[in-house]
């Protein structure tokens, strides 16, 4: 059975429960994909998308790369053209954040005081970037709080302490950061995850002096394991990034309201005229406090991505029971947004589909394209099955291409491509299967 079969309601499966109106809160990749999937699956009722941002729906992965580098005009990151959006026959309400929700009544309250009710509500509000404790205390308020009314849906993620300190989540964040980096000399990136690595790589390409500081032992060590992380970390060093890993940030230093550096817990001061804080994100659920929904690590859903009767969650904000893995999962990646949207749309229309994806993410840093399918635990045993890494991590990492298999307890849990996207996808098809397809 193909993924397509899995995501389309079977004949007769769609029943009497088809809603007369659907409201999607959040019009980024997950929300927009849900809207498109509803129409593609035959939904003809009223469809409304509510978003905190004024922008047309845009894609986020290019923000830390093509948009930040200036290689793309912001419009190039738009997810769909005007004609495609119009063909959706949906009402887009922009620049109006959701601030409260009543799950039992399926009623969303917005920043303007408006109440919007629908037969089905899909929550797709994504993430809010985390900030350093020293940022929070300087601001005297926690921006994650939904009472700010922006709650991660905004294109610009709020104040960050002294001027020159950035987070990167929305388009406006990216444009503000780009404007600053074109005038800055010394950037400190805090965080060694996907975003931190991509921003460091892009900023080196823009000619900045870059220092990357992070708690982990290597760039993406938590996501790729020690062996591949070591290669990636070394690539950054070869490209001139100064690395301070395995160390915490103590404080941001500033003068006249502008950032001047980052002080590490070791006492070392990293001078900076720009700082990017990329230490992870939290599900944007502040507006759902008191809604009646279970909020844990995100909106807690069942295996069908259902949070309550007629209420669903999709994308970065959704935590659901992955029946194939036998545990609760929340994925912060681009592919999940669109794949989960197919299942959510089917379930909104009365299907009964468990969502059992193979997790997948990619990251592009310098000339390296990394593809990660499945679960690549740091505890896994890694074997290179294509290409070569003779000499371990010696040699020029950027000329290297390889594909690897990750095993835990003898079972293949993930596959990885390092400049081998096609080979990684073939290994995925060979070694990883979604379970149980039978429930689809």
């Amino acid at each position, binding site marked *: 059975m193909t993924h397509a079969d899995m995501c389309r309601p079977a004949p007769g499966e769609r029943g009497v429960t088809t809603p007369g109106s659907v409201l999607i809160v959040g019009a980024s990749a997950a929300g927009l*994909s849900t809207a498109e999937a509803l129409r593609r699956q035959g939904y003809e009722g009223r469809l409304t998308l509510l978003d905190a941002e004024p922008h047309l729906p845009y894609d986020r992965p290019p923000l830390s790369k093509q948009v930040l580098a200036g290689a793309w005009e912001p419009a190039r990151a738009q997810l769909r053209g005007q004609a495609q959006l119009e063909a959706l026959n949906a009402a887009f309400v922009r620049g109006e954040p959701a601030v409260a929700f009543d799950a039992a009544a399926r009623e969303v309250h917005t920043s303007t005081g408006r109440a919007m009710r629908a037969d089905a509500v899909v929550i797709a509000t994504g993430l809010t970037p985390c900030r350093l404790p020293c940022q929070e205390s300087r601001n005297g308020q926690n921006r994650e709080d939904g009472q700010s009314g922006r709650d991660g849906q905004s294109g610009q993620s709020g104040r960050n302490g002294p001027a020159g300190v950035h987070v990167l989540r929305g388009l406006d964040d990216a444009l503000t950061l780009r404007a600053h980096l074109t005038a800055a000399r010394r950037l400190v990136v805090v965080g060694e995850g996907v975003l931190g690595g991509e921003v460091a790589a892009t900023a080196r390409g823009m000619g900045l002096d870059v220092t990357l500081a992070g708690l982990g032992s290597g760039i993406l060590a938590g996501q790729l394991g020690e062996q591949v992380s070591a290669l990636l970390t070394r690539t950054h060093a070869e490209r001139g990034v100064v690395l301070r890993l395995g160390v915490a940030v103590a404080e941001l230093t500033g003068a006249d309201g502008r950032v001047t550096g980052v002080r590490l817990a070791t006492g070392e001061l990293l001078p900076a005229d720009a700082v990017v804080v990329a230490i992870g994100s939290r599900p944007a659920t502040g507006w759902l406090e008191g809604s009646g929904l279970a909020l844990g690590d995100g909106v807690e859903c069942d295996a069908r991505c259902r949070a309550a009767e007629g209420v669903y969650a999709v994308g970065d904000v959704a935590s659901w029971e992955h029946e194939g893995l036998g545990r609760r999962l929340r994925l912060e990646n681009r592919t999940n947004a*669109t794949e989960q949207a*197919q299942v959510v749309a089917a379930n909104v229309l009365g299907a009964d589909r468990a969502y059992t994806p193979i997790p997948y993410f*990619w990251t592009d840093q310098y000339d390296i*394209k990394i*593809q990660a399918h499945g679960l690549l635990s740091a505890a896994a045993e890694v074997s290179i099955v294509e290409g070569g890494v003779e000499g371990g991590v010696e040699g020029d990492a950027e000329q290297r291409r390889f594909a690897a298999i990750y095993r835990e307890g003898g079972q293949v849990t993930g596959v990885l491509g390092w400049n081998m996207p096609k080979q990684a996808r073939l290994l995925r*098809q060979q070694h990883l299967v979604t379970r149980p397809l039978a429930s689809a």
Partner: protein
Amino acid sequence: MKVTIDEDKCCGAGSCVLLAPEVFDQREDDGIVILLDAEPGEDRHAVVREAAAVCPGAAIAVSE
């Protein structure tokens, strides 16, 4: 149906190939999408629409 691709937006995930291997492939060297059939037959329209929908790079466009 006419399918167009934007190579510059392709991230090499291969989602399209997983769904519709008769219509899409990937280059060996960099994984960028190869369009095998720009005007697929009607029996493939639904799956090609889904491939366009789930493409994580929004690199596939379909016009009727």
